[in-house]
């Protein structure tokens, strides 16, 4: 393969990387703060895409309003789920929240499938990019869809903002403090419970956002999150469970790796991330950017 083709694939990989980064970022925030392994993240991503599609069908809302509204709706659903179901499992064995979120995933997928089949008579629906971003642009080394460029830029901005908020602001300081030592944080008069709910809402809102962004690229269908979530978990593990920077960097890196792999030797594309995960875990059991458990 020549260098130009390689360069094209590296560039193309950033698109998938953007989705991995947005999803693993949400997972990392939720895990870092709540110690919840949210298996439902893929289904919430799908709900984001589905919400954008359904809002368009029901109210004629275009892509731009949906880009704001759908993640908010998904985030609100997250808040409800956290308050009514997940909050009851804190302090119990983590396998309980794994089972709960996995069960909710199956339920959500089938529910969406039923709704789509009964309301729209299809189980996989088209969703087109907004007119301003339709078409392709010649970048000199490759002809690339405008919309995909937008996805790369927007997700980089969102990732950077999230990182800044958590590392550099007072809000971030409270979140980090609540994670490190909830009882001391509570002693300062901070309602840790409310912050936990808020963080969960924002985390799943990020998944919803990724879903809306994905709708014009992939078809909107009930199982669209199922495969993605497996890779995303691998990304979180490679980056270091709970590490914000780790999930962003690893997300983009894995996207690039998979695209190059797909071009060089297609059968290995989907396995590459797991080979990487095994290799990283052998050398650094806490992930690339994670601190060893004892150092927390």
């Amino acid at each position, binding site marked *: 393969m020549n260098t130009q*083709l390689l360069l*094209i*694939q590296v560039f*193309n990989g950033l*698109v*998938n990387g953007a989705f991995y980064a947005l999803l693993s970022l949400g997972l990392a925030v939720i895990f870092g703060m709540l110690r919840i392994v949210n298996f439902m993240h893929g289904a919430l991503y799908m709900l984001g895409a589905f919400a954008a599609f359904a809002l368009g069908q029901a109210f004629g809302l275009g892509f731009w309003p949906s880009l704001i509204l759908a993640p908010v709706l998904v985030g609100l659903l997250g808040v409800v789920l956290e308050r009514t179901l997940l909050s009851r499992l804190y302090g119990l064995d983590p396998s309980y929240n794994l089972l709960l979120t996995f069960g909710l995933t199956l339920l959500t997928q089938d529910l969406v499938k039923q709704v789509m*089949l009964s309301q729209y*008579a*299809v*189980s*996989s*629906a*088209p969703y087109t*990019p907004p007119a301003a971003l339709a*078409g*392709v642009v010649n970048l000199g080394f*490759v*002809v*690339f*869809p405008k*919309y*995909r460029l937008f996805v790369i830029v927007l997700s980089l901005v969102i990732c950077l903002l999230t990182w800044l908020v958590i590392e550099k602001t007072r809000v971030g300081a409270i979140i980090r403090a609540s994670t490190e030592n909830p009882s001391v944080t509570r002693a300062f008069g901070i309602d840790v419970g409310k912050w936990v709910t808020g963080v969960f809402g924002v985390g799943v809102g990020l998944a919803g956002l990724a879903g809306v962004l994905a709708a*014009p*690229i*992939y*078809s909107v*269908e009930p*199982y*669209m999150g199922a*495969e*993605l979530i497996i890779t995303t978990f691998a990304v979180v593990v490679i980056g270091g469970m709970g590490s914000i920077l780790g999930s962003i960097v690893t997300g983009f890196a894995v996207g690039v790796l998979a*695209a190059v792999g*797909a*071009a060089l030797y*297609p*059968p290995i*594309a*989907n396995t590459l991330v797991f080979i990487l995960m095994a290799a990283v875990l052998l050398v650094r059991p806490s992930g690339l950017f994670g601190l060893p458990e004892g150092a927390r």
Partner: protein
Amino acid sequence: MNMQKKTLAVLGSTACCAAMTVALAQNLKLSDNVVRVGVLTDLSGVYSELSGQGSVKAAQLAAADFMAQNPSFRGKVQVIGVDHQNKADVASNKAAEMIDRQNVDMLVDLPTSSAALAASEIARQKKVPTLVVTGGTTALTNEKCNRYTFHYAYDNYMLANGTGSAVTKRGGNSWYIIYPNYAFGQDLNRQMTAAIQENKGRLVAPSDATPFPNTDFSSYLLKAQGLKPKVFGTMQAGADLVNVVKQYNEFGLRQQGIGLGIGLLFETDVAALGQDAFAGALATVPWYWNMDQRARTWAAKFEKAFGKKPTWAQAGVYSATMSYLQAVARAKSDDGDAVVKALEGHRFSDFFARNAYVRPQDHRVLLDVYTVQVKPKAQAKESGDYFTKIATIPAARAFMPLSESKCRM
């Protein structure tokens, strides 16, 4: 007196008729007195919309129609639908369970080639006729053929022979192909490549195997941009095909002069993406609902029962189930060997299978097939009006000739 005679005559003839019915019924040798049709299909995954519940409904309609036409079978045909999740191991277990525990007498539908091959092996061991409608691999009637497996509706040779030849002859003589990496895709890639080369076309690069299922095809579309073939060939099916075509349009390949060659196309794929995304693409199908009045009549009946227009896979399941049940009636038995004998060499023509013939040597069911072109939406006269017929390929020419078959039964 006269009155008495009349009564006697009526009584006599009634008794006679009743006796005949009993005699007929006694002649029927049905295991546990019921013929059980087993629809082994995908009820939840990527192919559930094009076959799935619709296939189960089609088989039920066939059973009901058959019982209405054959009073001696009234109440004796049952249909069971089971999910094989498109996995070979699940298909194998479910097929065995259906035959052993649910006393199923035949299997039908079987989307996903790997699942179809697995179930066909179980059917051979247990001597249960299996009519594959929705699985495409030619292995079913070649190296993996067996006495109990029949291949209905279509196969990869027929698709390649129809579409590969038609596209290449119309000037699409340089191809780059991607295919899903499992039995169906590998086989269709081989058949398509052969058909292209036979018509003096060429591949600009070796075909690429993609993971199955898969959502992102951008790497291959970018590769196609660089290779500049006249045709980008996709052997993907169902939800995967929808993603390929969506991204083919997104990357603007059509505007760059790269046409689209589709291996396997179902009506539901066109519905999922809108027919304009597919407009101009050629495909080969064994049937479509508005191809003529006979097809329309059946499709209307199906739509009334199921709420949606049938795909050709679902229509094929009806036809296959009916063919099986009629073979049971001819054999007067649901014994596997007897039904196989009644099916072999049978010639028939119904709303789906025209000029059909069950080839005894390899159990390929030959029928007329059609090369179609997807209409742009502006030309559609009603909803679901997707195809324009380009050519009819007669049954005798549509499928792999016996001389090429590797089947040894």
